[in-house]
């Protein structure tokens, strides 16, 4: 504890003896005003835990408004992190600890807390005006309404001010902005985390403002020391490190993973990466990430609108780049017209849809899986679209590369469906050796002999990818009906039907290039739980729980949604019942019904929030008694 010498949070107190209990998994939620720095606090707690060798899984939850009125329910920002000594797949159903910086944060998050969970509040903020803003008639910390919970009221604002009292050159307002680090320090004490990772981060982040670095570091240590000297925090927990595959790890979010995957695909293929996009929540971070990777021959284009972003991507693909756009559902609505042109032109490109709550503007910062049918069918004419769906934040890396592999193979656009949850939540990622990742082979035709723009590869049915600038291969392509092979404009009925069929067949043949559908659990049995996208963690955990209870339940998570893996129909037929759990009203269920004539049971949730493990388990238990 030598690094804490000199910090005197509450004069006169000595460290009290504490009990350290080992636990497996714990989930903590930090909540406060959107200006309180809760995202940062949660991230720091996550990083410190990851570095200690825990598995981590996070769920940020922030308001759509950047600065909703302070102290109101609309302005509450939260960050939940689960840390574990074994593999975890979700940030936990219900946190065991809630850190609430004000009454609104308490009110908004209390319903999620475990029945006997601990609540730490900043009692300084529980003033009559703040209570009123949150809609409390009386102070819940003082009346009996929180019975059952362990409530620890800490005057964080006062303690923080005291600890920073003699720091020169900072206003009281600036000092108050360190309160979140006081709270963080306290949780570091409670869960026996070292302060090192965060102290290092503070030094780097505030390198140019040493007084701010000093204030944050002191607040962090003061919080830790307060825990050490306060009776209420005698009971501490430690989550031991988990045993994992050796390697170098980092933590990454789905959006970070997506950006890394895209740039990796382009680099490994030796191509320019072109990212054309219009800012939209929750996809914008991909644009930000890539804009900072220009030294990888990445060209980012912030377009005037969603339509222009998609158009520019088509132009870049025509020019031979690895071209990609990222957006969310409302952006897909606008891009549909140009996506359809991309289908007609048969050019390779990737379209990332980070889904959010809809319809229309909907819930910009919340998660949902409601764009599946839109990307499958939301275009005029017969317009087949390959669709992939990563199942976890780090899987976005893999699927971004897969998307380009398939796009280039078929000379066709490919959609990747991420969602707000994947985009913003994070998990540890074992850093791969880029040399060991698949290199996508790109061939640009240069031979004029026998060339036609829609002459097709016999196996894949792909047309040649010709770079403008290649002598002798000048040709025109367009959105009008055309004849196969020559590409000549044609309204001939036979030509048209042939073209529609061959494009459908081309996409269907991608099934030959994707893995078979794996199943987790028994090869046949009572129930197969099927999901796609970000529901992976909750479904996998629930299925594991059901399996431990002796039930014959398996899990199939579909990452290739169009075409489906070639064995999927057969997999579905091996179980007496199929349960499809998805965050919509049954979009995958509908596709499975139509494709395999398989009746399925549905579990649907459309609340802008991920499934809880318990919700899925309850349904499993209803079906398999």
């Amino acid at each position, binding site marked *: 504890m030598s690094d804490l010498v000199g910090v005197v949070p509450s004069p006169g107190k000595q460290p009290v003896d504490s009990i350290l209990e080992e636990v497996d998994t714990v989930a903590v939620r930090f909540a406060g005003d959107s200006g309180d720095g809760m995202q940062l606090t949660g991230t720091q707690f996550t990083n410190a835990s990851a570095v200690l060798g825990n598995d981590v899984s996070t769920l940020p939850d922030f308001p759509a408004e950047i600065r909703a009125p302070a102290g109101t329910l609309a302005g509450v920002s939260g960050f939940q992190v689960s840390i574990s000594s074994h593999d975890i797949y979700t940030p936990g159903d219900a946190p065991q600890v809630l850190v609430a910086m004000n009454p609104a944060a308490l009110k908004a998050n209390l319903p999620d807390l475990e029945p006997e969970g601990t609540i730490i509040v900043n009692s300084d903020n529980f003033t009559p005006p703040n209570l009123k803003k949150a809609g409390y008639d009386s102070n819940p910390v003082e009346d009996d309404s929180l019975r059952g919970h362990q409530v620890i009221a800490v005057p964080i604002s006062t303690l923080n001010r005291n600890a920073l009292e003699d720091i020169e050159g900072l206003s009281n307002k600036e000092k108050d902005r360190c309160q979140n680090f006081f709270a963080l320090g306290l949780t570091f004490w409670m869960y026996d985390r070292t302060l090192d990772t965060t102290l290092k981060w503070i030094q780097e982040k505030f390198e140019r403002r040493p007084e701010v670095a000093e204030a944050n570091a002191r607040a962090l240590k003061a919080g830790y020391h307060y825990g050490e000297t306060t009776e209420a925090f005698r009971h501490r927990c430690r989550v031991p490190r988990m045993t994992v595959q050796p390697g170098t790890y980092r933590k990454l979010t789905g959006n970070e993973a997506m950006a890394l995957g895209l740039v990796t695909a382009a680099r490994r293929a030796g191509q320019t990466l072109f990212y054309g996009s219009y800012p939209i929540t929750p996809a914008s971070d991909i644009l930000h990430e890539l804009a900072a990777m220009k030294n990888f021959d990445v060209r980012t284009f912030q377009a005037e609108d969603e339509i222009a972003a*998609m158009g520019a991507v*088509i132009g870049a693909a025509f020019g031979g780049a690895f071209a990609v756009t990222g957006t969310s559902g409302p952006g897909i609505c606008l891009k549909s017209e140009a996506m359809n042109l991309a289908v007609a032109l048969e050019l390779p490109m990737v379209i990332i849809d980070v889904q959010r709550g809809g319809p229309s503007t909907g819930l910009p910062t919340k998660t949902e899986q409601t764009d599946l049918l839109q990307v499958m069918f939301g275009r005029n004419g017969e317009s087949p679209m390959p669709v992939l769906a990563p199942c976890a934040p780090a899987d976005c890396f893999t699927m971004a590369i897969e998307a380009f592999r398939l796009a280039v193979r078929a000379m066709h656009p490919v959609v990747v469906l991420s969602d707000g949850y994947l985009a913003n939540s994070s998990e540890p990622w074992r850093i791969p050796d880029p040399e060991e990742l698949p290199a996508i082979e790109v061939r640009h035709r240069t031979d004029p002999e026998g060339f036609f723009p829609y002459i097709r590869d016999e196996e894949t049915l792909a047309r040649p990818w010709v770079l*403008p600038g290649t002598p002798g291969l000048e040709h025109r392509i367009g959105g009008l009906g055309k004849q196969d092979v020559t590409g000549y404009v044609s309204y001939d009925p036979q030509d048209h039907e042939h073209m529609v069929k061959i494009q459908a067949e081309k996409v269907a043949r991608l099934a030959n290039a994707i893995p078979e559908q794996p199943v987790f659990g028994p090869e046949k049995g009572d129930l197969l739980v099927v999901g796609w996208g970000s529901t992976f963690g909750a479904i996998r955990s629930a299925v594991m729980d059901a399996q431990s209870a002796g039930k014959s339940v398996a899990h199939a998570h579909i990452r290739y949604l169009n075409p489906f893996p070639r064995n999927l129909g057969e997999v579905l037929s091996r179980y007496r019942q199929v349960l499809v759990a998805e965050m919509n009203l049954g979009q995958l269920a509908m596709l499975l019904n139509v494709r395999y004539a398989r009746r399925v049971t549905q579990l649907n949730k459309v609340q802008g929030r991920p499934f809880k493990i318990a919700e899925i388990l309850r349904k499993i238990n209803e079906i398999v008694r």
Partner: protein
Amino acid sequence: MTDTVQRPTASLTRKDFVSNQEVRWCPGCGDYSILAQMQKVLPELGIPREKIVFISGIGCSSRFPYYMNTYGIHSIHGRAPTLATGLACVHPDLSIWVVTGDGDGLSIGGNHLLHCLRRNVDINILLFNNRIYGLTKGQYSPTSRPGHKTKSSPMGTIEQSFNSLSVALGAEGTFVARAVDVHTKQLAYVLKRAAEHKGTSFVEICQTCIVFNPHEWDYVTDADVKDDSTLMLEHGQPMIFGKNHDKGIRLNGLKPEVVSLGSGVTEANLLVHDEFAEDPTLAHLLSRMGPPNFPTPVGIFRCVEKPTYSELMLGQVEEMTRQRGAGDLVKLYRQADIWVVNEASEGNGR
């Protein structure tokens, strides 16, 4: 579609740019003349054929790429500038032409046109202005004159029309010009200058839709009146027009006025054209001139040098590469808090 005839650039002729597709505009359409001039001018530019790309949207004018034996995309309504922008970003060495119309470019695609100009993407935009929707058979367009009676405006349009050159100048266009479909020599000259300009070149071509708006441009095309109703812009020259070269444009305060030469007014009193003026005020003033009180200026209104979008984009790519070195994925993956797990162990794996 492809024609695999290959010739060295030096000996390219008009025919090398003629595709094997049958041209399907209405007989007498102004588009024929524009196509012919384009095919005549291209061999003179010294650009290899394979480096030329035509991109269009939807409308009569947008059939243009099919008739050019170059690379080409016939895209979707109004979006051609977006495709051209993406292509220019990854292939700055190409000569990219966008062919659009008053509906395609100023109505459904207005937004893209503005932003393309503002960014100064190195492409050439030819806007065929016939002040009508031809392909959809005769509705008014955003450049139709107020009161124009069409199928969709039987009592006359109630809309203010766009002045396409003012729009282009307002959007910070660095090359803004006007030509007339049947004034072939002047059209060829403007096309050449547009091709040579670095950055977005915007050319409005007054084009006659013989079917739905046949008399729209009579005042600039009819031999009898055209000399009195057009003003040929020439850099560094006083603005003189009229069949007898006896009329000129003089500036009176902030307003231009038409004056007759002689009786005390000399060339020295007239406004002198300056294409290269950094300030777009003169160009804007010219763009506002037209009937009934003024001749319609034809030629190059503005031609100024500014960095192009792809130059700036590639400049940043180079700058970051210089600062950080060529991208290394191994390092990139490690730009975060990392931790190392050494001992092999069982674990649940992932």
